């Protein structure tokens, strides 16, 4: 399929979403909470259902509020269970999101007799359809999803710039942050709120798989390349943006090789991020497999005289 303006909009929307996820994602990966995005995107179901029952309409703003509120609750419950119960955080997260999802499912099914609320279609937007829903700002016209993700991006960027030193300190040394008078608990919940809002805004407009992938994979890739926080965030954003563009390119260029028109862009965007990760895994300057192998060889050459003399 040829590349059209339509495709440009899809790629741009994907890039905006990827960058706005990569920023909080970097902190999630550093704090060993990578699975939070996945947990939140499952857990918001009861929020959507309740918002729907409260307003009686499938309007996106109340749904957004409901979902974001439950997303924040997910983080809160996870934190409580792991703190008061002494439970491993992964397990706590799993308990919270499966239970919330189950409650949401029950709510929806018990109402299904008189309303039309299908979880898979209410929950998740599709990035291919974003250019069909345009909004205009003065002379400019852009997809609503691009505007939503752009807004989240600006929000995340300003929070990170304003609170950069607090975020950094509380990610690496929460007790020092506490003794210096920044509440690491507050920063934690702020970050969780950021993740919840980003996740909900993104999956509602472009689909959940992009969010889950873009929260983790670009940040993990960046962590393989650098050990400094600011370069890490910058690389994560770049990797996210590249994989969104590359992903859409792959979605419309690879299937034609097999005689099929195209495939789902959100899937290929996640997969493209995976490819970039593998590239970094192999070729990263200091910690890539190649660099490790070369270093290992050098060390062996260096050590061998000793080994010989001892033998």
């Amino acid at each position, binding site marked *: 399929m040829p590349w059209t303006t339509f495709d440009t909009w899809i790629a741009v929307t994907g890039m905006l979403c990827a960058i706005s996820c990569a920023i909080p994602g970097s902190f999630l990966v550093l704090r060993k909470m*990578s699975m939070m*995005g996945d947990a939140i995107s499952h857990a918001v179901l009861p929020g959507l259902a309740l918002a729907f029952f409260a307003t009686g309409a499938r309007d996106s703003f109340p749904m957004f509020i409901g979902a974001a509120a439950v997303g924040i609750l997910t983080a809160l419950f996870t934190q409580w269970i792991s703190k008061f119960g002494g439970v491993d955080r992964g*397990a706590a997260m799993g308990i919270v999101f499966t239970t919330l999802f*189950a409650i949401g499912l029950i709510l929806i099914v018990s109402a299904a007799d008189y309303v039309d609320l299908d979880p898979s279609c209410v929950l998740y937007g599709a990035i291919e359809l974003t250019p069909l829903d345009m909004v205009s700002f003065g002379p400019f016209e852009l997809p609503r999803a691009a505007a939503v993700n752009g807004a989240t991006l600006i929000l995340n960027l300003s929070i990170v710039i304003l609170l950069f030193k607090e975020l950094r300190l509380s990610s690496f040394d929460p007790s020092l942050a506490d003794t210096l008078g920044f509440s690491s608990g507050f920063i934690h919940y702020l970050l969780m709120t950021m993740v919840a809002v980003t996740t909900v805004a993104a999956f509602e407009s472009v689909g959940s798989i992009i969010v889950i992938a873009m929260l*983790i*994979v670009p940040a993990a890739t960046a962590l393989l390349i650098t050990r400094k926080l600011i370069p890490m965030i910058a690389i994560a954003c770049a990797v996210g943006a590249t994989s969104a563009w590359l992903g859409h390119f792959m979605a419309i260029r690879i*299937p034609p090789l097999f005689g099929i028109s195209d495939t789902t862009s959100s*899937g290929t965007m996640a997969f493209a991020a995976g490819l970039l*990760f593998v590239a970094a*895994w192999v070729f990263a300057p200091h910690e890539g497999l190649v660099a490790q192998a070369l270093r290992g060889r050098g060390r062996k050459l260096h050590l061998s005289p000793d080994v010989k003399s001892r033998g």
Partner: protein
Amino acid sequence: MFEAIIDVLFLKDHNTRVVIISVMLLGVSSGIIGAFLLLRKRSLMGDVLSHATLPGIGIAFAMMTLLGFSGKSLPVLLLGAAISGVLGLLTMLAIRSTTRLRDDAAMGFVLSVFFGLGVAVLGVVQKMPGANAAGLESFIYGKTASMVFQDAVLIGVVALVMSTVAILFKKEFTLICFDEAYASSQGWPVILLDVAMLALVTAVTVIGLQAVGLILIIAFLIIPATAARFWTQRLDYMLLLSALIGALSGWLGAAFSGIFSNMPAGAVIVVVAASIFLISMFFGTARGVVPRLRDQARLKRRVGRQHLLRAAFEILEKQPGPLANTPVSRASLFAHRTWSPREFSRFLARARAEDHLEPSAPDAVLLSESGFGEAARITRNHRLWELYLIRHADVAACHVDRDADMVEHVLGSEIVRKLEEELGPEIGIPQSPHRI
């Protein structure tokens, strides 16, 4: 209505019986395997693997269609799912062992990238000429109620086999859960054992996914094990309890969803399991919140009472003349340590309730005979520890009080005897080495 409930709970109906028994077996096996996962801090592995199966399902379907068969053959799809699940877990282990990334990032990577690939593959498959891929996606959201007899038998058998294998490997799995470094230093193949453990998870996930749905199988691998952990500190009991909780929530959940028709069984089972978890979290005898708070409160009361007695003893010591048990004024006792008025009166009440104080004038405190003895014993322990620190740990005399303050409450008779041996023949109560 009531009879209907009894019928369902006690498996009177043949169809429900088959479904409920197979769900219970699934609960047992995922309870056992989930317990090892929890101890290995990989509870979310079920989540990861259930997402990682998608590309395998899509590719298996595409290959069958290209070869001219019907794509929706269950064994082939399950095989595809298992293969891509295993590839996912190998990727995860490779990331973990060759990069700095932790388990959580490796798991997130596998989950999202494999699922993304799966979505892309399904996108292609659905547009393939001659393929009827409709409903393939709902393959990952199974429906317990519509489970047919063969499915149930398959689940039951696989669940039984997996539980048996997990029990057979108990010693090895325990070793890598608790001390991975020791295991590898003893020559155990840690990576192979990891693969074996996760292969069990994959098998349970793939089977459960098709039959009872994504969310239930994730929950089944996490919730029973975590709930069991609150009741015991021993692995054997934990495995047993976790299996029981899995079976119980499967039974109750499936029965409830049978009673209230059109409730999704998977979701009801999860809610039942989560309720059991909440009860365990609060009241679990080994690590539950309530017993722990109770123990903490008890310790705090004991420490407070002992501090009170020692304060009284130290005041008596300072009085001129030989040591005698005379009333101590409340005001001087209160001034002796830092405590809030409320704490102070609570400790006094406590000591009175334990017969360590005798009635006396309202503004004075009089130790009873047992209270005086106890006060002497605590003071002596405190001083012995202080002297020990000064002589053998080279701690300055002005620093020892705080440390001894915390240790005096937990010095057992054996340690006190050792201290006496260490510190020489002073059997009485030593002088305080610092100003009180």
